[in-house]
């Protein structure tokens, strides 16, 4: 193994902006290991108080849905309009609905 960055794995970086919010994906970086990934994420993605908590995860550990299958994958929820509140007609004068 050489010291070339080519060998460093890709990490995805998630930040919690403040307490009460979810961690949100903000970008990616290369690092030789988890600890370096965390400290690099601090330097690259939080120079202006953008976060109170950082997650880093190796990109190759993420399983993603394929864009090619998006139609079959999400179709089952597409035709179930009755799952939405706006499907139901309620007279306008009924309060708190």
């Amino acid at each position, binding site marked *: 193994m050489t*010291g*070339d960055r*080519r060998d460093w794995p890709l990490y995805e970086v998630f930040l919690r902006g403040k307490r009460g919010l979810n961690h949100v994906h903000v*970008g990616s970086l290369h690092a030789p290991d988890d600890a370096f990934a965390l400290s690099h994420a601090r330097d690259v993605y939080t*120079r*202006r108080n953008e976060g109170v908590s950082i997650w880093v995860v190796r990109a190759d550990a993420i399983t993603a849905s394929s864009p*090619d299958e998006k139609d079959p994958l999400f179709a089952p929820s597409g035709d179930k309009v009755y799952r939405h509140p706006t499907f139901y007609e309620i007279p306008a004068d009924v309060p708190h609905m």
Partner: protein
Amino acid sequence: MTTTPMPPTEAALQASFDATIAHHDRIEPRDWMPEGYRKTLIRQIAQHAHSEIIGMQPEGNWISRAPSLRRKAILLAKVQDEAGHGLYLYSACETLGVSRAELVELLLAGKQKYSSIFNYPTLSYADVGTIGWLVDGAAICNQVPLCRTSYGPYGRAMIRICKEESFHQRQGYELLMTMMRGTDEQRAMVQESVDRFWWPSLMMFGPPDDASPNSEQSMAWGVKRNSNDELRQKFVDMTVPQAEALGVTLPDPDLRWNAERGHHDFGEPDWAELTAVIRGNGPCNAQRMAHRRAAHENGAWVREAATAFAARTAQEAQR
């Protein structure tokens, strides 16, 4: 039981891509995209990333000679931001299937470009202010519309960058205002600096529209949102009142308000100069590349040490 669907034909993929672009929707990394689109993006994002990294040099030149601790802290933060911007953009570019190491090699081999503006020298501390005001101001003009570019990761990187560029522009303008309140000598330094940077700043928008062969396709793909000349005009209109407020003269005898057009008329930049700088014959091209190569080589031991440390830590954790 699953059935294996027929793979979509190239025509169907192209149609789906075209529909996404027509809806002003974003293309994401794992979507199918035409090879030309991918290549155009790689070229543009890489050039942009390299510009941020090379762009650390002209101002980095003054960090050790800042006139006060306050100015030094500001300049350090700014140059650190440029490094960060380079990294956001390399990450965005990597989602297109190239590695950062490849991009760095292409830059060092002279096979990819960076913005011509960074091939001009910084001769006085006033240049730190002028770069913030004019160069970063021009960059903001270019970059704000790119927040809506059709490629998702590029647009998201641009949003982060634009937020930070605003600090760059304001610190520069404030620096110049401070100097303009100083001695005659300081005011002369500001004017001299603006005289040197005005035309190169206008060239940052690229050649005129009729001489910009890739622009039309980039606009059709939603990679670019405005033409070079549109953005250049916008920058001139934005900058003229700022120059007046500062009390400096922009070095263009043809610069005047045109009430009919509702825009300022201005002179033609020296396009032969831009071509020469892009071809490698600007005042600092060789110096910038030599410095970048040396920094890359001198940093090799850090990358090797980090890799070795990570390997050892992993080994110890296994025991």
